[in-house]
């Protein structure tokens, strides 16, 4: 064990800055635990397509709910009971356990003023954290990188487990990194020819010219890919993850969290929740996959004593209409709920009132909590960042962390 890790250290040392790695590494050893605690991590799970919030957290005491959803409404007996008023979708059994353990917060009626019912526009708004009248070309996590990573050694503070990078991860000066498999990322970027090109190009401190910017991005990608792969090798999960794309992605995230990597934000997507037709089966299947992946992930974190350092946030670009449609589905709506999971929540359970079905606006729920407040809270209280600068406005903070 010792020799193996000693070798890893030397390898990393030759790639990354050895001095920077040493103290934490040694400290970890003293505790007999390879993974040093402390680095607070945010995991964002995007539920793409507009998840039906009303069938996620079910207001099963509300007559309007059943009246407007005679077929799709989930029966009280079937729902997993949270309180007298509300229950969880039957497929979310693992999350129900987390709820019971005090490791889950549910925020209802999250949205934004003047909601847009187009997927791509509303997703844009959630990613950029702009007002619905503005078009911003940077994302909230990207701007977090801009604020945190001036002169950062490696742009690995935010990683997306996907082939391409989401708008949310793009800042003006810094961008997150997207990959599905750390080994493939390494193989692709560390091609000898590419490395030779980077070596041949004189490094520029200030990338004013675009060519310098491209070379800088290329050099960072190559070195980040090496760094990620090195870190990734250090921990292999003993947990069994479901063999679904989300399961595989959550496993990659867990293995990275358990390594010494400097990543603060992970981003992953799951879907599609666009259930215009035959919603029941589709949502059930997607929730089962979500539930299994998150359950394995949490178990993994707990076994490694890291659950208190991680917050998982779920969101979707919008909720769905209150009334069911004629095809056994629901159409695009507005306000929705968000889940917050973690061992370090300061408030748990239902964090606010459930949806007010008696006060709809053109058949849609009205938002009560601006999603930017959730971002502000996470940025400020969890990631210790300047939320006002990043969101370009001061939003109120919530008290779940």
């Amino acid at each position: 064990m010792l020799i193996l890790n000693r070798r890893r250290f030397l390898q990393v040392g030759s790639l990354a800055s050895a001095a920077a790695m040493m103290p934490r590494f040694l400290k970890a050893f003293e505790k007999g635990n390879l993974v040093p605690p402390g680095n607070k991590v945010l995991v964002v799970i995007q539920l793409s397509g507009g998840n039906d919030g009303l069938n996620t957290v079910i207001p099963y005491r509300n007559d309007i709910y059943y009246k407007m959803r005679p077929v799709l409404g989930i029966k009280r007996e079937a729902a997993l009971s949270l309180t007298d008023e509300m229950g969880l979708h039957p497929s979310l059994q693992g999350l129900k356990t987390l709820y019971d353990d005090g490791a889950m917060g549910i925020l209802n009626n999250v949205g934004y003023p003047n909601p847009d019912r187009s997927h791509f526009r509303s997703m844009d708004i959630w990613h950029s954290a702009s007002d619905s009248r503005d078009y911003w070309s940077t994302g909230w996590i990207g701007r977090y990188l801009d604020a945190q990573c001036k002169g950062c050694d490696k742009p690995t503070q935010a990683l997306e487990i996907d082939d391409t990078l989401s708008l949310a991860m793009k800042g003006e000066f810094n961008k997150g990194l997207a990959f599905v498999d750390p080994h493939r990322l390494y193989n692709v970027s560390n091609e000898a020819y590419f490395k030779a090109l980077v070596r041949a190009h004189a490094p520029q401190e200030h990338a004013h010219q675009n060519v310098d910017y491209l070379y800088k991005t290329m050099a960072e990608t190559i070195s980040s890919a090496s760094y990620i792969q090195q870190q990734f090798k250090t921990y292999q999960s003993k947990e069994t993850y479901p063999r679904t794309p989300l399961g595989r992605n959550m496993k990659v995230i867990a293995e990275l969290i358990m390594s010494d990597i400097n990543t603060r934000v992970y981003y992953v997507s799951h879907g599609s929740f666009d259930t215009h037709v035959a919603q029941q089966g589709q949502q059930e299947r997607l929730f089962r996959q979500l539930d299994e992946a998150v359950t394995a992930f949490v178990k993994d974190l707990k076994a490694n004593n890291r659950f208190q350092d991680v917050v998982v946030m779920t969101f979707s670009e919008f909720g769905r209409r209150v009334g069911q449609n004629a095809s056994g589905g629901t159409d695009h709506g507005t306000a929705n709920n968000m889940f917050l999971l973690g061992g370090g929540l300061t408030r748990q359970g239902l964090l606010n009132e459930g949806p007010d079905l008696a006060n709809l606006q053109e058949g849609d729920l009205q938002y009560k909590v601006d999603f930017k407040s959730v971002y502000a809270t996470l940025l400020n209280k969890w990631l210790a960042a300047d939320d006002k600068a990043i969101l370009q406005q001061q939003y109120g903070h919530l008290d779940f962390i």
Partner: protein
Amino acid sequence: MASVPEKLQMQHLAWRAGFGEPLPEVLKWTHKRRKAVVHNLLSGPEKAVLKPVTVIDASQLPDYRKMKNMSGEARKQVRQMNTQGVKDLNIAWVQTMIRSNYPLREKMALFWHGHFACRTQNVIFNQQLLQVIREHALGNFGDLLGAVSKTPAMLGFLNNQQNRKRHPNENFAREVMELFTMGRGHYTEQDVKEAARAFTGWGFDQGGQFVFREKIHDDGEKTVLGKTGRFNGDDMLQILLEQRQTARFITAKIYRYFVDDVNTDEARVNRLADRFYQSGYDISSLMRDIFMADWFYDHAHIGNRIKPPVELLVGLRRTIPMEFEQEAMMLLFQGVLGQQLFYPPNVAGWPGGRNWIDSSSLMFRLRLPQVILYSQELQARPKEITPEMGEGQRYKMTLQLNNTLRKLYARRVNARINWQPYIDTYRDIPRERLAAEIAGALLVKNAGADKPLLDKYADASTRDNYIKTVTIDVMSTPEYQLC
């Protein structure tokens, strides 16, 4: 700018006013006067008639009025025709760009495609809008604006179909002012409200034709941008064109796209905008002013523009002719590189510039020549396009598009590469000068790919293999991403 060699100037022009030209063509230009070269670029070859990019005839799609009464099977067929149609339209336009002998028109159309960003699932509507944009690409901006504003694609996308006297919908009016003409900060909310009233009644019928529905038009008096009258939609566009700010906004955007997207020289843009305004919004004159200016050939601009993904792909295919076993690969490439034609990210279009580049998109770009020219697997899939809830169940069409791309992702990219014409352009170049010539032809500015490096990774077994491998390696550089 005597310090910039003539050849480099013309390479620069060939890329900015098109998708690059082969070295022999560029060399020909160097023997002509700038004025003549620019004139040819602007007017295209003699007798160049505009051939519409057409993939479907309106008569092939059924009457949408009858859609409601259609059987499930018939609806499915319509959906498939639309999905296939939008895909085909993408491919057909890319082919047009590749083969065009009037590249500036396509390039300009690509610019307007981003400016008048629009999403619709209807292939006929897309086809119409594309035709309008290509037709007026180098014509008069006022005509272009008017024609675009009357397409069913745009009217539908910006909800003007719902803009009625009693229930005004401001979306169309707002975007016309914010994104198409003046830009933010030059009008008030009240102006938007009044403009929306002027556009009431503008819509389209089920056959895809513009209609003015007088009954729902608000013909009362409006006060907008300091003018008062019983304005209709046409009057409104005219008022917007009378604003100098419109000329300034459009000129600045064209300057950023064609000259420099990092630094906007305000004084220069203002001078261009004044002339554009005085010309009555003649787009060709504006482009002539830009391409004729000495500052356009300044070192600072050369090789400092990040090629949009579509320009990268088209440029590569214009350099080396190739036929893909499956042309749909173009959609996959566009997707992973972040510019899927007909699917702009939002109403504001593609932000462009450094927004094209992140770690993964840059690595795809660098790998792309190898993937295509060595028939490798791309092993990447774009983010899924979430279908919008259109009328009926058209969202299924986008699902089909996603499925197509998913199936392509792990496929080997098979293309028949016609190397010969390209190799022939180097016929007279001695072997020891080949690497430098190739790099010099493919890159406008070279920062890292020198001969020793290229030699090290080249296959020197035959002259042809040497040319091929050096070419692929030159195309796999950061410099090749720039023009």
